[in-house]
Structures are given as C-alpha cells and as structure tokens.
C-alpha cells in the first residue's frame, strides 16, 4: 500500500519524537546517577569490605551511583593527583577510607561533603562543616563492659600511652573506669625505647593490659615485646583487633567492616536527601563483635563461659 505524503510526515514525526524521548531518557537516567569519589588510603581488605557495604546500602535505596575510585597507596603525590582529578570532574560526595586519605581531602576540599570511613582519630573532623564519619574505636564504656564480662576478676587495668597523643582520652577513660569499678594503672611512654621499663612496672600492678590506639606504643616492633610480656607475666592483653588476638592477645573487640560501610552509606543517603554533612554526628561501629584466643586463655587459666566462646566472631 502506498503511503500518502501526510502519513509519511506523521510517521517521521512520530519516529523523531520517539528518538527525542529516548535521548531524553538516556540523559535523564545518567543525570540521576550520583557521582561519588572514593579514596582508599591503601588497598586493604577492610576498606574493600566497607566500600561493598556502602554500595550495597545505596543500591538498596535505589540510588544509582557512579563511583570514581582512587587508591592513594599512602602517597601524597598520588593523593594530590586524585584530588585534582576530583576537583576537575566534580563529585557529589567524597567517601574516604582511612586516616591518610581523610586528612589529605580535608586539607584541600572545603565545599564537597566528605564522609570519612574507618578512621581512628576525630580531631581533624571537629568543627568541619562539610564532613562526618565513622570512627573505628568503640566507646570506652563498651570496652570496659566487655572487660568486666570477659575478665570479671580484673580490676587494675594497665594502660601504656603516649601523653602527646592520648592525654585527654586517658583522662576521660580514667573517669569512666572509676564509675565502672575499674582502676586504670597508667604508664606514660614517650618513645618506644621506654617500653620495656614501662612494662616491667605494670608487671607488678596490672591484672590486664588494655591496648589503645596509640602509634608510639603499638607498632610492629613493639607488638612482639608487648605480647611476650603478656605471655611471660600471665597478664592478659586486650588487643586492638583480631590480628592481635591471632598473635596472642586474649581478646579484642572487632568490627564488621561491611556494616561500617553500610553506616557510611546511610550518611551518604542523608546527604543526598539534603542534610548537611556537618550536621550528621560522628558515630562508631554499630555492631560490637569480638575475637578470642583460646590458647592464650588456656595458658593463662582463664575459663570463658561456653556462651561467650560460641558468640565470638573468631576463635583462635
């Protein structure tokens, strides 16, 4: 059947309209995908797990995300280049994983909302209007509650710390400890060379040794000394993480890094809904897990109830 000229015009117009709708649809869809820059301090597995949780949460909320991932590998040069790229290409949110990447971004970007995931120290975030985050450290109350539960007979808790890094933290912890019927036996360590003497002092007075986030006291070189001290003196060491427990610490509180990533995703979603990053309070891990070293427990004649053993995330 021959098409009349009018019919041809109608068909052409219809196709053109369809094409325009299609183009508009593509543009619109792409316009909905949120560009998020992700900066790893380095490519450690916990960071990867956190990112997985982050993506998962936002996908569940129906948010399309366009991730721009940079592994800084601890290099300031790489960090500088990544930040330049982000500034050029733009980002709706910057998600940093680890202290190094967080610090680099905070120094240079003031206008884009920043979610700092997996950091230990909060000082740099205080008062920053465009940033929020998740702190890896558990509240002191949570840590002491676990101590009372797993080491009910321990009252004198030895703490090694560098005053320049942790003076304020220790002051607050000591107050909390008192309320919870614990006594912190404090020993200042200004350099790693002071560690042996500090440990010798604690050998006489401490029922347990509490590991805190302190980069002077807890280094790869000092880890061996501290664990050996714990082993030789039968003073259980409360480790910083599961890796420490594997190496010989009695127990540690643990984090679910994927869950932490999801928490960061929640923060990102709130920001996308219109909240200011600075108005979202910093928080810690929602889930409190723990690891046990049963060999250390046996060696120190510490008997954990069966229920406590079963609930441990990891048992060594």
């Amino acid at each position, binding site marked *: 059947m021959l098409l009349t000229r009018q019919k041809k015009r109608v068909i052409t117009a219809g196709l053109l309209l369809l094409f325009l709708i299609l183009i508009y649809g593509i543009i619109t869809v792409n316009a909905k995908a949120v560009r998020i820059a992700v900066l790893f301090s380095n490519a450690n597995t916990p960071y990867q797990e956190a990112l997985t949780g982050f993506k998962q949460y936002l996908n569940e909320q129906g948010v399309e995300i366009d991730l721009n991932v940079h592994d800084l590998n601890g290099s300031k040069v790489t960090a500088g280049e990544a930040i330049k790229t982000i500034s050029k290409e733009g980002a709706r949110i910057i998600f940093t994983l680890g202290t*190094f990447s967080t610090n680099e971004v905070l120094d240079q970007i003031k206008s884009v909302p920043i979610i700092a995931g997996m950091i230990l120290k909060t000082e740099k975030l205080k008062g920053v209007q465009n940033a929020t985050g998740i702190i890896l450290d558990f509240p002191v109350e949570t840590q002491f509650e676990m101590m009372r539960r797993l080491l009910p007979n321990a009252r004198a808790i030895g703490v090694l710390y560098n005053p320049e890094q942790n003076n304020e933290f220790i002051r607050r912890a000591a107050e909390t400890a008192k309320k919870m019927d614990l006594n912190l036996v404090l020993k200042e360590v200004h350099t790693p060379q002071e560690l042996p003497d500090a440990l010798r002092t604690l050998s006489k007075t401490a029922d347990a040794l509490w590991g805190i986030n302190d980069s002077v006291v807890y280094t790869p070189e000092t880890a061996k000394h501290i664990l050996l001290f714990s082993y030789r003196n039968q003073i259980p060491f409360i480790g*910083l993480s599961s890796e420490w427990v594997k*190496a010989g610490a009695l127990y540690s509180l643990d984090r679910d890094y994927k869950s932490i990533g999801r928490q960061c995703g929640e923060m990102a979603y709130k920001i996308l809904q219109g909240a200011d990053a600075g108005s979202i309070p910093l928080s810690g891990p929602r889930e409190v897990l723990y690891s046990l070293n049963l060999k250390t427990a046996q060696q120190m004649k510490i008997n954990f109830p069966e229920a406590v053993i079963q609930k441990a995330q990891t048992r060594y």
Partner: protein
Amino acid sequence: MREELWGYRHLLVLICLFLLPSQAYSETDAHGGSGAFADEMMLFQEISSVYSASKYEQKVTEAPSSISIITADEIKKYGYRDLGEILKSIRGFYITDDRNYKYLGIRGFGLPSDYSNRILLLVDGITTNDNIYDAPLIGTEFPLEIDLIDRIEVVRGPSSSLYGSNAFFGIINVISKKGRVYKGTEISGEAGSFKTYKSRLSYGNKYQNGMEVLLSASYYQSRGDESLDYSDTYDEDPWICADDNPDNCYGLQEIWPGNTVAEDMDTDRYRNFFAKISFRDFTVEGNFHKRKKVIPTAPWETIFNKSNNYSIDTRSWIDVTYDHTYANSLTVVARVNYNYYKYAAEYPYAGDPDAGEADVVTGRDTAKGEWINSEIQVSKTYYERHRMMAGASYHGNLRQIQKNWYSGADTWGSLDDERHNDSWGAYFQDEFNIRDNIKLNGGLRYDHFRTFGDTLNPRIALIYNPVERSTVKAIYGSAFRSPSVYELYYNDGDTTAKANPDLNPERISTYELIYEQSVGKYLRVTITGFYYNIKDLIRQEKDPDDGLLVFKNVDDVSAKGVEFELEGKGENGLEGRISYSFQKTEDKQTGDVLTNSPKHLAKANMIIPIMEEKIFLGIEEQYTSKRSTLYREKQEGLPESLRAADYPSDHFTGSFFITNVTLYTRSILKDLEASASVYNLFNRKYGDPGAGEHFQDTIEQDGRTFRLKLTYSF
C-alpha cells in the same frame, strides 16, 4: 693490582652496608607515611605470633652475648628431671656425673675434680654458688624444685664485668614462676625406675590487692641402681701409692675384698621448701633444700660397699629485693640476702687394728658457710641512645668453716678452719645505640677481695644488624675466678692434702664472633666462633716434695671452637633445635688436650604435636665424642715398675648417642597433665671420666630408665 682492586671493592661494599640507614628499627612504615597513616594499620597488619616468638625476644638478639633460653614448657615436654639434664641439652654444654654430683662442662672445659666453679648459677638473681667450694649444684642437689622453673637463661662468655667472680664461662639464670601462674593449688606425683618417687604440693596466686604468693614443698627419693658392678675396675686392679711413697703402694684388690658390686649404694633423696611473696616493689624469697646421696664408687680409697659413705648438701637463703622504675625512667634494683650452706660427708676407711685403730675408721668432712650478699643497681636511658647501668655489691662471708676428723684413729690428721672475709665490687655498663642498627655495649667492673686484692674486668661488644633479621656480634671480655676458701685453706692435718693461701685468681680472656639470622617466619640460625685463653688455672696436684695434694696456679689453657645451631618454633606447637659444636681445648705448656674435653657435641631436640594443644611427643638425641680420662695422669704418679704396659697412652671414654623420649599430655582431662618418659631409650652403655678420688677410670651411667608423672591443678 687486580687483587687490590677486588679487596677495595669489598671494602667499599662493607662501608656502604655500614652507612646504610637501618631498616630494622625504623619507626616509619613501609610507605614512608606519617604516624596518622599507621594508626588503623595497627588494626589490620599481621602481627608476629607470640607462640612462635616466645624465646626470640629482644633480649636474645640485642644482648652482648650468645644466649640460650629453655622454658617451662620445654622442661615438661622433654621430661627433664633435674637442672643437669636441662643443661645437657644446650649447645656446647655437657655433664659429668660421678654418682655423687653432676658437673657442668662448657666449650670443652670440664676438668675432673673441678667443681664447675667457673660458672655462676643464679636463681632469681640470687647467687647459688656456695662460699666454700664456689660450686653451682646442678643435679638433684640443685636447690630449686624443677617444676617451679619458669625459664632458664644461659649467657655464654665472660660476664665478670657485671657479675664478678665465677662468671668465668658465663652465667645461668634460673627464673622461678610467679604465683599468678598457678591460680590455686597444684599437686604432682612421679614414679620411675630404681624405685624413684617424687611428690610436690604447690600453691600460688595473685590477690586483688596486688600481693602475689608462691609456696611449694617437695620430696624426692630414689633407690638408684641397686646393683652397680665395678668388676671391670677391680679386674684392672689400678695401683695407688700412699704419700707418694713407692714402698707403700697397693692395688685396688687389696682394699676391695673381692666384693665388686655396690648394693643399695646409689640412693638419693631430697626435700625442698620454697616461698616467694611479692607486693608492689618488694619481693621476699626463701628457699631450703637438703639432699643426701649415698656414694657407690668408694672414692678417696674408702671401703667399698659400705653404706655410711654419703654426702649431704643443705642450701638455703632468704632474699629481699626492691625493684622500682621511677617516673623519669630510672630503674633501681636493690637486694640483700642471707645464705646458708652446709656440706657433711662420711667416709668409711679401713683402720689398722695393729696400730690401735678401729677396723673401720669413719672420716667426717663438714663445711659450713654463711654469707650476706647485697647489691644495688641503677639504670636509665639518656638521650634516647645510651642505656646506662651502674651498680655496687658487697659480699660478706660471715662464716667459712671447714672441718675434718676421723673417728677410730687418733693419729690421723684433722682440720678445723674458720674464716671470715669479704669482697666488694662496683660496675658500670653502657649500651650505646650508635645508629639504629649498630649498638656498642661496654662494661667494666672493679672488685676488691680481702684474700687476694683487686681486679678489673672489661667487656665490650659490637652488635650490628646489616639487614633486617640479621645480627652480627663481635665480643671481647675478660673474667676472673677468685680461689675458693676450699682451694686456699683445706688441709687434713697434712695427711693427704695441704693448704695454699698464696693462690692467685684465674683469669680468662675470650673473643667471640656470633652471627644470628632469622629465616622465614619460624627459624633462626646461630653460628658462633670463639677463642679463649685461661691464665693461672687452679688445679689440684701432688707436691713432689711431700706427696700432699695442693691447689696451685699451674696451667695456661686455650680453646677455640665453632658452634652451629638451627632452631624453630611454629604456631601449631611444632618446635625443635639442632646444634653442633666443635671445640679444641688444650694445655698451652704441654699441648695436650684437656681431660674430659669432648671435641664434638651434637644435639637434636624436637617437640611434635600429636593432637593440637593436647598431646606432644618430645624427642631428644645427644651425641658426645670420646673424652680422655685421668688414666695417664694417675699412671704418672706410680713408680715405673707399677705403671701399666700401655703407658703413656691415654684412655678415653667411648663416644655415644643417647635418645630420650617423652609423651606429654594436657587438657585431655581438665586440669590434669600427664607424661611418660623413657631415658636412654636404646639402653646405650656409656660412662663419664672418673676424678682423682676415684679408682674407676670411667664411671658408668644409667641404662634405660622410665618415669611417669601426673600433675593436677585445682
């Protein structure tokens, strides 16, 4: 020219290595990042397990000497029964047992009749060497119950720069367990071959107020080998000449009346009480140990197979130690201890009734010592690079009594000697971190003895880490041993022995080069080369003028050797070590190799987990090469007509392998440990050289023996 260039190239490489920044102790991480970057890395980074590192602490690699450590865990899993068995497993060490005492030989030096007094034996820092013989006791006479040992640190090389006299070949520091280890009561029982039994009751705990207590009591008895056959010796019929008089010589068969089997003459028993209380900076420790051993070998020409042939050693101490680290990192350790030692022996001799003597003349030998040791030591780190230590000590001999008399023979000589003297010393040591990978350790000690005067002893060690996990140590040290009051003043009324108050101290200079390398995650290699030179060695010999035994400064001795050790410990409980040592120890005057000096020692130890954390198999293999005996020396004391046909040949003990096996279990039943051990598994016949007081050229040791042990905690 080409060789010179080659040499310069090597020198250049060495200089570059010397100047390389250290990688071993850098505080920056591998990325060269800031501390902030390192923060959460401490959560994720793999940490070396303490269970594969519990022996390889900083102390071993950074110490200015070659150190071996034996832990309580190893003592259980290898089934060691006394300190001598533990020391025998250590690289370069060997034991001589004359069925009365055990003596320690180190790096080829272990002369018969020597009381091992060239090694300083400490328990919790308290010197256990007595003030009569200066002897460390290491068999069942060792004053601390073996089960109370937490670990033993063996420091080789002269250590007089810190410890003074007797730290000649090194020191052995035995550290007792803390009360907190027990968390209650522990009861243990053992039964073994030769009707050997031991029982122990211990209690230990740490209380809420910080006080820590350890109390322990143990009792041991053994019938020993109830039938020791010395017919070989009897058949050889060795001769001796009384008073060096060729007209007064007699063979063994004259004084052993055809009876060559020592029956029920090897019994041994001890009891031990130990108490340690710690509170804050103070520790009070008390120990009492009394041991009686019947002697089957009939030494000193005593009547063979007579039961009143025994020795009793009693050793006790009470110590108060103050140990505090002040806010400015100044550490002060001060201690004072009172010590008591008593030796009592009975020796039955054949009397001459025709001369109005009893048939059996009983010789009684006693020695009693009381002394006080006090010491203060301060240490502090200055400018982050100097770890300095200074100290002073005072040793006051309240009583040094030696008595000897004979019942049943009025004309036989006697001894009644009492001395009081003292000594004091002051020392200084600096551990200087020249760079992060180079450390210089220098020490100097001055001692003043009322008996012989002053002595100054240095030690210097360079410790270098060329690359991570490698350590090279170059060490020079000198040490001295003051003559014991026994060597200076013992005489039995000039019957067989006389005094020599003019003895000078012995001196030793030692050079050592040590290389330590960690291999992979679990292994460590140690290679050591050493050379030592002893001047004025004190030995007992017969004075040709009067035939009396006397101690003299007679010999210069030198020794050189190499030691190799590979040790490893895995996280699953598998651990082991294998060592070989070669040493050549000779008298510089005669060129002769010293008596009782093995050229080769090899040891292999392995702990195999059969069931993880519950059942372990401990296997030990020890090789000792032949050792010359005193045979030729004894022949030299005889008139030519009485010497053996093969004079002047040396006689040797045979070389031997010994295998020990222990099956150890724990946690099969809650709070119960059990072990079953077989010693000398293949029932090898072997012996140790006899000393001057023995007719036996070689004293045969035990064949295959067993032990079962149960320990229960509650």
